[in-house]
């Protein structure tokens, strides 16, 4: 497939593609290769992917570290690395020798909010993406509880899937216990149009 396309630039988005990166490079010697390096791989493996594996923690930790080092070693096949936040930048600069740029993954509001008056505000802050402990769901919940004391009208919105059932139950209990039902809203992923409507209502 790649031979047929014969691209000038290849952008690799996921870790597993690195299994064929050396082959791809050999097939396309004049092409440039960019790797879109994602969130800390070892933490993700340890606290999300492998969380429920019935294997001792230290083995999971060794495996997660091994995969992370494997990913770093594979970056040598690339011409350029891109990432989405400062933490990835810090890790890349510590572990890789390839040039890197952060392209923040902020929501692109473009012209949607040009004439958006404060009276239209529905939410004070929103998070869009997979909801997990590693991504700060518990911190946001706790922050909402604290902010509620100071700002009674505050509204926080988390839009995304919660794959961890324990986290889902914990957040449901937390919301009930601290009476946050009206100010801390959790929703599963919407189709993109509905999600744009939420963005417009942010201030």
């Amino acid at each position, binding site marked *: 497939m790649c031979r047929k396309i014969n691209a000038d*630039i290849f*952008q690799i988005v996921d870790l*597993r593609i690195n299994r064929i990166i050396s082959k791809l490079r050999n097939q396309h010697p004049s092409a440039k290769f960019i790797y879109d390096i994602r969130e800390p791989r070892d933490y993700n493996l340890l606290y999300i992917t492998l969380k429920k594996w019935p294997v001792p923690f230290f083995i999971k930790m060794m495996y997660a570290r091994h995969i992370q080092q494997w990913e770093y070693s594979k970056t040598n096949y690339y011409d350029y690395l891109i990432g989405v936040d400062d933490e990835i930048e810090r890790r890349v600069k510590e572990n890789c020798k390839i040039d890197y740029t952060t392209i923040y993954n902020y929501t692109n509001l473009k012209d949607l909010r040009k004439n958006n008056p404060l009276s239209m505000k529905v939410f004070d802050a929103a998070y869009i993406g997979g909801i997990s402990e590693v991504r700060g769901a518990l911190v946001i919940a706790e922050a909402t509880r604290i902010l509620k004391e100071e700002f009674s009208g505050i509204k926080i919105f988390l839009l995304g899937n919660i794959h961890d059932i324990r986290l889902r139950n914990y957040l449901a209990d937390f919301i009930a216990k601290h009476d946050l039902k009206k100010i801390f809203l959790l929703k599963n992923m919407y189709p993109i149009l509905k999600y744009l409507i939420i963005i417009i209502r942010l201030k």
Partner: protein
Amino acid sequence: MSQLNPPVICIIADKHDLYDDRAYWKQALSLLEEGFLVHYIVVNSDESNQGVTKEGVSFYLIKRKQYIPSIILNYLIKKAFLFAMNMMK
């Protein structure tokens, strides 16, 4: 950027689907706007398919070969199969 011979970029994803918020809506479409010819390959798709999206991105969905549900065993079977094929050559 010249439209006669536009640079070709190929995005290859495995865990992200075709209409991924970032890889498709932000990156692929921005590249398209800048005059690139964008191809998007999704290796681990539920179905095999190819075509051009409404926005103009050429896509190739490749269904992953899965012999058994376990990812690890599936990987090992594939490796064994490839090894056997190489031995036969």
